């Protein structure tokens, strides 16, 4: 039920983001969704792509520092309070959200959120226990 995400260290410097995306584009890697966390000096670009291994290899070849992390994708009803409901469930079980961001595509009528938890497996158990739909990686990579 885990989703693979790659994270890239990027200096806060003109043209770096363009370079990363160009390298991926030239390698035929399609970015499914992304989020950028930044500070004044550097940023961490987090990506979910259609081919994680290939993305990692081409970026490493070009000298970028890349790591692979496991995140969780959850379907959320696209209505007021949808996100609040899910966060409440997690909070009740003492699960910490390290960060989260939204997936670009919808899954039918629902929105999709990407979560990074401190305890990934426990989070998945909690969510499935409360009948939330956790999406497998393969679904996202090809959506």
């Amino acid at each position, binding site marked *: 039920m885990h989703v693979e995400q790659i994270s890239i260290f990027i200096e806060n410097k003109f043209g*770096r983001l363009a370079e990363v995306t160009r390298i991926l584009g030239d390698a035929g890697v399609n970015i499914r969704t992304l989020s950028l966390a930044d500070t004044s*000096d*550097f940023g*961490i670009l987090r990506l979910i792509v259609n081919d994680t291994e290939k993305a990692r290899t081409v970026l490493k070849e070009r*000298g970028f*520092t890349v*790591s692979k*992390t496991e995140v969780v994708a959850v379907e959320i009803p696209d209505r007021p309070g949808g996100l609040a409901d899910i966060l409440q469930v997690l909070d009740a079980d003492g699960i910490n959200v390290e960060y989260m961001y939204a997936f670009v595509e919808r899954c039918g009528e629902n929105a999709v959120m990407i979560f990074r938890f401190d305890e990934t497996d426990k989070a998945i158990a909690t969510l499935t226990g409360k009948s939330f739909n956790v999406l497998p990686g393969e679904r996202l990579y090809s959506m």
Partner: protein
Amino acid sequence: MFFNEEFETLPREALQALQLKRLKAMVARVEKSVPFYKEALAKAGVTSDSIKTLADLQRLPFTYKQDMRDSYPYNLFAVPMEDIVRIHASSGTTGKPTVVGYTRKDIDTWSELMARSFVAAGVHKGDIIHNSYGYGLFTGGLGAHYGAERLGASVIPMSGGNTKKQIMIMQDFGSTVLTCTPSYSLFMAEAAKEEGIDFRDLKLRVGIFGAEPWSEEMRRDIETKLNLSAVDIYGLSEIMGPGVAIECCEAKKGLHVWEDHFIPEIINPETCEVLPEGQMGELVITTITKEGIPLIRYRTRDITSITYEPCACGRTHARIARMSGRSDDMLIIRGVNVFPSQIEAILMGVEGVEPHYVLIVERKDNLDTLEVQVEVGENIFSDEIKHLQALSAKIEKQIKEMLGVTCRVRLVEPKSITRSEGKAKRVIDNRNKA
């Protein structure tokens, strides 16, 4: 193991008697043949005849790098040009280089001292020495080369640069000894890794690294990544070139100065007083056998300390500590003295941090600022900002605690810090440009 056991293990009393005899003879030569020294000695009121003990050395005048520049190119030579068989010059990053000349006997002495240094480092006949010190005006390449031949080892005259070829030759020729700058050794190991070659699988057994200051932490890193025994070598072209002092592989605790040819002193660079054993100060060297360009109390600007304690290896020659840096590399940041090597030692003490760093010093509103750029490799990269920020904060705190200077750590992408094939450029000081 020794190359010249008699002289390397000479009892200190005999060594000092030899030093005194040679010192007097050298001063007698220069007071006749070098106008600069004739004048300087007269001004100090010293003649060769008035030197009675080694303590009289302290009455002799200093020689500064500027004196060598002012004597450009040949005015400090003590013999006619027809007796000079080789000329070298320092890199001279600013203005004219400093020029040195060697007689046949000087080259002979240098070769022997370099051969002694190789043996002290654990090298023997039958070794294949991969010499990546630059050949040319710089003394590193030819100095190591002649020493290797004197020892009877096989020397590969690689010189610096062309890293891919270096790695291929090292692999194919079965090099067992590597001589280069410490930063270049790591650069090569990194480049090899990218080619899918693990340095640990090569036949290298000994690495002799010098020409720039490095730390004990960097030694550990090199020994792990290259799987060899790394020793520190010291030299400077003004005095001779590489092989003025060497660490013995038995102790690896300080570098033996070949005292039958050089007299080392440690002084306070500001007051010029001679410091006692163990105290840090500027290394001053007097060459007592050199013919081409003998130097009296040459101010090396290198910061170290000296010990005369007996060494495990059996050599009786004094040992100087690993160089803490050049007195002119020393940064004064808001009144605090900082050597790049001290920051390197702190960085390398942090788990996963690579020895690739640059210090940037600026002056903003009359206040000095220090920025330490550290590369983020996979070992320290975290997907979460808070972990990276905690790492920066940890390094900033350690530098503050250990050196007393506030700095700002900036995390940068790997390879954004320029790799050096010769001496690593560690400091960018922008204070005087504005």
